[in-house]
């Protein structure tokens, strides 16, 4: 991993690391990179693609609309509500 990618991940995850932590994390990712390269060398072309690690499938439900929860109950834990809305610090694009 290069420094730029590392910096990007740091920003993306909203992390602020000290220089020591950075060096540790960088070394950690570097060692994982070696493993990845080793895995890449294995020929898997004849292996059927695995779409999921577990051999199980989902259940589906019928398309029926039911309202089981009230807005009031759901908003009990909200720091602030107004006219039925949740309120959050203003976001401006």
């Amino acid at each position, binding site marked *: 991993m290069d420094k730029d990618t590392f910096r990007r991940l740091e920003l993306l995850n909203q992390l602020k690391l000290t220089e020591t932590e950075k060096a540790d994390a960088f070394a950690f990712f570097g060692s994982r990179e070696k493993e990845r390269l080793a895995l890449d060398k294995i020929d898997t072309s004849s292996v059927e693609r695995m779409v999921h690690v577990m051999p199980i499938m*989902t259940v589906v439900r019928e398309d029926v609309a039911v309202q089981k*929860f009230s807005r009031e109950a759901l908003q009990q834990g909200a720091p602030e509500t107004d006219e039925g809305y949740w*309120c959050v610090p203003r976001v401006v694009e």
Partner: protein
Amino acid sequence: MKYETVIGLEVHVELATESKIFCSCSAHSYGSEPNEHVCPACCGMPGMLPVVNKRVVDFGMKAGMMLNCHINRVTTFDKKSYYYPDLPAAYQTTQWFAPVAVNGLVEIETSKGKKNVRIKQIHMEEDAGKLVHDIREDTTHVDFNRTSVPLIEIVSQPDLSSAEEVEVYLDRLKNLLRFAKVAECEMAHGTMRCDVNLSVRPEGSDKYGVRTEMKNMNSIEAIKRAIEYETARHIDAIENGTEVLVQETRRWDDIKGKSYAMRTKETAGDYRYFPDPNVMPVVIDDEWFDSIQDSLPEFPEVKRDRYINEYGLSEYDADQITKSIALCECFEEAYSVCKSAKDAANWIISEIMSILNKRMITYDMLKINAHALGELILLVSDGKVGRANAKKVLSDMFDDLTIDPLKYCEANGYIVSNDTGLVEKVVAEAIANDPKAVADYKGGKEKALMSIYGKCMKELKGNCDPQMLRTILIDAINKI
């Protein structure tokens, strides 16, 4: 140098289901109070598990089949992480690694001929909530009614090269998805939205230029203007070095007619896609697959050809009716009653479509008792009700689906009278009142006859067989 525009589209379509994709909340929030259709699952509360709505998968498959895609029989959901208040869980559940449908093909026809647009994939996903910024200055208000409403995203390959092609392609998608009844696809209602990826390159080149993306376009006119603007901007940058093009997301301001840079385009890695551990793979067995395939509608062009070959409609009439599945259904039902395809088509094209246009209702929103329409057509072709009065009945039938045409015409005095005595009396009066028109007609002016005819018909309140009135009128004049 000549340039060509290279365009790929990502089209988001809201599926016409009753409930949301992963919970049982209603998917219809139009006209609702904020946060009326919410539950812990679609509000992203910890510990809540999603349960897949079967109809979303049905519709995803159906859309895929309509667009000639390969259906992935094992299809999985993935998490796409981003942090924004319209997304309560801080990730969107979507499909990244094994979308429901891949490798499709849509044929379009423009003024330059036919062309295939390749479909990269169709994936199922949940919509985000709505943010309201103008209630108060200090906060943003959040409404989760739309959160988890099911969408499909149809991703095309960069096979489009003009605003015209984009328009035709979007129309084609709409038509196909509406025929399959999986979605309304109405940009004005927000049930179809579009991201436009565009780049420009020298004609004939096989390398792509720098690509920009315009997100959330919601009108075809705006899309066309945006494509023209962006194409010109790219060419200007390449030819005159007016700016350095960068890969980015831009916002289209339709009022100013300009696009603006938004933020540098996230690469896929930024969203940290990974398999959603809360939703197990959806496995589509043969039975399920076949049931969807069996439920596919007749394709619009197959219907069109059938209307021409089987029912003897003109190409124009067949084209008009197959613009919308609702018109087709109305036509087929009315025809089954009145047994005249020509009459049924005629009433739909000249009367129903014009009423819809006048009332600014899209063809697909047509709600009429088509069986009753067939009966009304019969009343007219049997000479029992005059056409002008039948039009009035039709207009009332839009407002009241329970109208029985025969009873309604009887109640309103619209039944044509066979009373020749009455008609002769009205004709005699009309002739006496307008000697000039009579003289004009006798002098060879055909039009003058129509004027007396019109007055008679008005006097008879439209309740007269046109042929009978004409015969009696001409006889009476000839006797003078």
